[in-house]
């Protein structure tokens, strides 16, 4: 007898007729709603190396204007944050959040012995490894691992993309990547797949077979659960008709549905502005700004803004001096934004970048990104940051 769709969907649980449910699917029993007060993290990855200096602008620093005669953004063109800092003119939403006290800015965030290769540095940020280490698991993946074994909540970390990033890949657990709930649901609804799960794993002692069935069961049940949840409380707010706008809308809908997801991951790119930076970065910032604006507004009207932390990062910043092609080349440290209604400390948390102490023309990091991760893991996600990151990093006090 085939497991009917309805049975898959009750609270995301498959427990109605337990004697029909294959053993590994029992793990879904009790996958309840997200407990109130559970905080949500949204990680927005700016891929390609966003130029931090033209994002949060050192408007009083002569070195900046000297090194960027063409590319430097004039003080009167930027949006004023403080006497020392302006923000890129397109980021009006961030300016508003700053004024409200709902935006924390961290400058010069990086790590020792920076790597200027995209794939290497992105791996370092996603795996929270040292510059000379190679780790095969991501920091959010390891957070999933630490939550529980054969957890009843494999939908705790979702990536809104077709492919899963290393960041969400743990040893035993992996997040689920979906472009949108409907597409994942359509991809997984073939009754043949349900039959496969119904018939079960013929070799439960074999490690590889077990793993394949586990991922398959989690994906298909996860797909049902996510799809049903996404229909419970679809966002009615207006979002920009861009890829990133749609992804934020999906995330908002899921957050407001009460789904048990605690971490969302998405990316925007490419910020790799070797050439023609002004136009390229501006275009991306227009998209970014509109999407964040809609997202924050949506969360506020649903009274969720204080339960959500939106964190942005990029795998590196760019060199202080402009290059000969109207752009900048790969650099080192850059900024991170933290947006939430629950910030204890907001504004420019660690001052403006020090342009007089460069290393071979590049910024030297002032804050190790793993401190930010550690703080969020510990205080926002109630997790053992030392275990997940493999070392203790200094806790910060923005939350």
């Amino acid at each position, binding site marked *: 007898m085939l497991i009917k769709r309805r049975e898959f969907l009750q609270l995301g649980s498959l427990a109605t007729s337990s004697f029909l449910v294959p053993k590994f699917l029992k793990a879904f029993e009790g996958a309840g709603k997200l407990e109130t007060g559970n905080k949500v993290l949204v990680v927005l990855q700016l*891929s*390609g*190396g966003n130029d931090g200096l033209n994002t949060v602008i050192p408007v009083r620093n002569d070195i900046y204007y000297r090194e960027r005669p063409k590319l430097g953004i004039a003080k009167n063109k930027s949006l004023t944050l403080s006497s020392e800092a302006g923000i890129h003119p397109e980021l009006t939403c961030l300016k508003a959040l700053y004024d409200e006290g709902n935006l924390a800015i961290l400058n010069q965030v990086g790590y020792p012995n920076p790597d200027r*290769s*995209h*794939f*290497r540095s992105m*791996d370092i940020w996603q795996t929270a490894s040292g510059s000379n280490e*190679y780790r*095969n698991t991501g920091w959010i993946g390891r957070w999933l691992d630490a939550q529980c074994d054969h957890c009843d909540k494999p939908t705790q970390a979702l990536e809104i*993309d*077709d*492919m*899963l*990033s*290393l960041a969400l*890949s743990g040893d035993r657990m*992996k*997040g*689920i*990547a*979906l*472009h949108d709930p409907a*597409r*994942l649901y359509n*991809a*997984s609804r*073939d*009754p*043949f*797949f349900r*039959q*496969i799960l119904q*018939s*079960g*794993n*013929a*070799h439960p002692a*074999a*490690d*590889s*077979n077990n*793993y*394949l*069935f586990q*991922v*398959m069961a*989690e*994906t298909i049940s*996860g797909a049902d659960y996510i799809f049903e949840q996404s229909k419970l409380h679809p966002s009615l707010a207006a979002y920009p008709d861009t890829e990133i706008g749609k992804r934020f809308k999906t995330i908002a809908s899921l957050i407001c549905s009460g789904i048990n997801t605690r971490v969302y991951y998405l*990316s925007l*790119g*490419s910020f*790799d502005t*070797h*050439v023609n930076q002004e136009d390229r970065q501006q275009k991306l910032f227009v998209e970014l700004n509109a999407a964040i604006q809609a997202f924050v507004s949506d969360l506020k009207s649903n009274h969720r803004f204080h339960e959500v932390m939106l964190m942005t990062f990029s795998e590196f910043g760019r060199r202080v001096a402009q290059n000969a092609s109207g752009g900048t080349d790969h650099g080192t440290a850059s900024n991170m934004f933290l947006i939430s209604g629950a910030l204890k400390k907001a504004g420019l948390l660690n001052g403006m970048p020090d342009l007089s102490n460069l290393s071979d023309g590049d910024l030297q990091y002032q804050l190790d990104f793993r401190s930010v991760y550690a703080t969020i893991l510990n205080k926002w996600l109630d997790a053992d940051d030392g275990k997940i990151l493999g070392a203790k990093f200094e806790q910060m006090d923005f939350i």
Partner: protein
Amino acid sequence: MRDQRKNQHLLWRAGFGPSADQFKQIRNQSSGKLFRSMLEACQKAPVLFDVADSGLKAMVMAARNNPFPQRRNFSPEEKKDLRKQSVQDIKILNVRWLQEMTDTDAQLREKMSLFWHGHFASKTANIFYDQELLNIIRQHALGNFRDLLFSVSKSASMIQFLNNNQNRKDHPNENFARELMELFTLGRGNYTEQDVKESARAFTGWGTRLAGGFEFRERQHDAGGKIFLGRTGNLSGDDILEILLGEKQTAIFITRKIYRFFVNDQADENRVSELATAFYDNGYDIQKLMESIFSSDWFYDDINIGAHIKSPVEWIVGIRRQLPQDIGNPEVQVLLQRLLGQVLFNPPNVAGWPGGKHWIDSSSLMLRLRFPQIMYSADTILATPKDDDDLMMGLLEESARRRREMNRAGQIIHTRIHWETCTDQFRESKEEYLIPDIRQWLLQCGTAINNDSLKNFLNLSGRDNLIQSAIIRIMSTPEYQLC
């Protein structure tokens, strides 16, 4: 059917799986005989790949043949052309190699090359570098590890990728020396930081130019005294390589990696030790090592059969061998590789691809399970791979436009499957054994779906339709991901 299962196991591990025209052979031949014929097919030297654009080739030859060494370089426009065209040509090389893996009788050589390609992982934006390194690997894949190590270390690709061009007397760059020991020979924990520093000095002066070719730059070489792994002397780069080969640990490290790739993810240390000793004693003869493995009884232990999760490349080529087809847009295979997490010539880092369970997550598994159906109905893959800035290198606008176009039209695979060849194999199968025969051909471990349940999902209107739909359905199972 015991021989069939063993033979399939051999073909999946020592090659890329059984091909449609080997159906009779694997049911009638002994594994020993089958392996000998696989070895025989590898005796002929490989035909080297040469896919670079002819305009580029002319440019490179001119630069290489310039009588003044310091002028063997390119102008800024030529550099830009080289980078841009290389992105295209590397895709062509990718597809070309997949074709070779699919068609060649020298399965063991190409499988071995895939292993070395992951072991000596490198990534460049230069078609000549990538091609040269691959050809070096294919030539020595079943030869001698010593020759392989020397040739790879002096290849333009490796020199550039691991920054040996920047490794100079008084300004050493340790990248190559470090990875050489950590990843290519001894493995972590078998050398000190001091060893890294000293050997980096020995490799100073090893260089290459954009046009390729190994150059020893005497003036940049630190010819002073060094201490490395306890040996002293004015050690050169060649000396370092010899010393590393002289360490038995190198044989152990390589053998263990080979065992995990070809036999079982969980290495049996006793067997590894035995194999490594022989490998070391016979002077690093790779073919002999592989012969020992594939002619051992334990290779065919139940615990090894069906234990390996196919890598994206093994999975793609395996399907093509079992389901021969003409792919109208073969570059779609590069998209598939990207969506599944393994693009040839694009390893995630110098440690290569971790493999095993890392291949499988919700997205990659769903794509593997759905792909046979997609292929069958020439459906659309509605998926967008992530941007790869290293690959894109400023070509983003163009590729984004291309992607938008493709997504509008639907990313369609154009393929024509040679169904006659496939259905023909089962011509002699009795009615009640037809589905079991198909299962045995496709799967290395059993599935729990019984034949009656399976029939609910098949096209029962005629024998050919039954066979076709059965093949497609059985390929769409978790078990098909294993070999």
